[in-house]
């Protein structure tokens, strides 16, 4: 479970890192993608490969719509307006999906029939092992993209200082747009694998995806990819423990309490030392 959260958090952190704005519509964009995937499955009995591509594509298109309407069109310095606007679009997406898919729940194709396997004395679902593997591969690919290509360099430059990047000839608008789509696509992959293990989808998934991704990102430290992974894994472990000892309701309570406690005690998250230091430096400069 934790690796799914980690993937969600990576997408979130990518958007936040580049834009310094919060995209509340992140989860709902993924939801749109997941519903598109399930539509392909129900209508055309598409195989897992097509469903995955459809999910990612749907999420990316929804993400592009959100970026144009809520972030590109709204002036710089109006971060709150962007956030509220992305929330408004969230409601749009959720109701749009509810109208297009009027039943409460839909079936989502499972990856396949897997047996439980024994691993070091624990019984583990194979889907979770596959998810962990996919997460690892994606993180590696993302790392290569961010640190080995010109596009990655541009993304990091915009993240560091958008104005300086602009003066250096980086087309910031385009970089932000592409990073946004990339993040939504990663979210789509995460959404696909989470759904393939749960096998049932509802429009509420948008809310869950935003929350879980947000919590995992904040636990790890905003704008940090390793932090997002650590936060996602931590969240997964804590939720499972709480569910095991106290019941299903306490799973979410534990997640939010953990987040609240973390924000009070260590607002920078697990692995965000350098951003905390940077904020401090910015404060001193004033």
């Amino acid at each position, binding site marked *: 479970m934790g690796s799914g959260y980690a993937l969600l958090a990576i997408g979130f952190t990518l958007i936040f890192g580049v834009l310094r704005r*919060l995209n509340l519509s992140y989860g709902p964009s993924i939801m749109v993608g997941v519903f598109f995937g399930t539509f392909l499955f129900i209508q055309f009995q598409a195989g897992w490969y097509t469903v995955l591509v459809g999910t990612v594509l749907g999420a990316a298109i929804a993400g592009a719509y959100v970026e144009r309407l809520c972030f590109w069109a*709204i*002036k710089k310095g109006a971060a709150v307006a962007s956030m509220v606007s992305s929330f408004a679009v969230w409601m749009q997406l959720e*109701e749009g999906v509810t109208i297009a898919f009027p039943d409460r729940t839909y079936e989502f194709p499972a990856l396949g029939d897997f047996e439980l396997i024994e691993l070091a004395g624990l019984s583990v679902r194979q889907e979770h092992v596959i998810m962990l593997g996919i997460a690892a591969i994606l993180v590696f690919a993302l790392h290569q993209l961010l640190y080995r290509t010109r596009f990655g360099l541009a993304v990091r430059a915009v993240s560091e200082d958008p104005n300086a990047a602009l003066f250096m000839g980086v087309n910031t608008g385009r970089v932000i747009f592409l990073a946004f789509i990339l993040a939504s696509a990663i979210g789509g992959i995460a959404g696909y694998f989470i759904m393939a293990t749960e096998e049932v989808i509802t429009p509420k998934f948008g809310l869950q995806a935003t929350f879980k991704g947000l919590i995992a990102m904040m636990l790890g430290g905003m704008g940090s990819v390793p932090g997002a992974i650590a936060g996602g894994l931590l969240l997964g472990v804590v939720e499972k423990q709480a569910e095991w000892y106290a019941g299903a309701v306490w799973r*979410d309570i534990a997640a*939010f309490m953990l987040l609240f406690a973390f924000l009070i005690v260590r607002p920078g998250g697990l692995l965000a030392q350098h951003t905390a230091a940077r904020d401090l430096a910015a404060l001193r400069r004033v």
Partner: protein
Amino acid sequence: MDDHVITVLNNIGGFSFIALSAYLLLLSGEISFGQQAFFGIGAYASGMFTAMFGLSFWIALPLAMLVAGLAAAAVGALTLRLRGLYFAIATLAFAETIRLILVATTWQVDVDGEPVGPNGSEGLGNIRWGFDNEYAPVDFLWMIYGSLGIVLLLFFLMERSRLGSIVRTIGADRLLAETQGINVTRYKILVAGLAGALAAIGGAFYAHIQTTVYPENFDVMLGVHSLAYGLIGGLGTAVGPILGVLLDVGFLEAVEWIQGYRMIAFGGLVAVLLIFMPRGILDERRVHLLRLMLRGRRPDIHGAAGH
């Protein structure tokens, strides 16, 4: 007036309190996603006081405000170090924790042979004070708008007072406020507490009109809506958030052909509006222009349009 109109008006009034609550925090420079927690605490506390312990609404209301205000001040004190987004997420985490704890809590007492009290996701029912004392929806209408009038009056007085300028100064620039010798810590906690109590008024009315409240009534949707009301209506005056509520609950609820597509219409409206007016319809500049026009002076176009 027919019942539907009264219900809509009561809803507008009730949600105006939480919109004003979010607006007050926005003035002090904080974005809260968690005001629904204090709306919910106000609803549950006042409902428990009247339904479980037989208190009058007029005693339960200030008590509920006190409970919610103290809780909000405590959250404000805990989150003092956090700014911007971190504050928003912390308040969201708090509100969701409260909501889920309400889902997990059952505590009922016997009233006239019936169990009354919070019952997990079944909610808190049997809040019959209005029914027992023969209060019709119209009577609640007067109560709500009377209270709203008092709150608005207090807001206008505050905007003209030292407190108002202190709050706006903190909102504009915290460091500046500190160098002016303002005790920012104390005012932040004060504003958080006041905002919590304000949201609780709306919650108390809501509970006694609905007679049953559920934890899911106070989910994040309510919180972000209340924030959106201020941003649509405008951050220049306390009338702004109420205008936002009017637009959402009043306009979209009233226009029937939008039914079923309400969120799509409202979402699109908000998104487009915020592109052209990032600080809402009644932002500081337009409020200033309106004031000048009301006083019969020609607005100074150059100064006002210079932004």
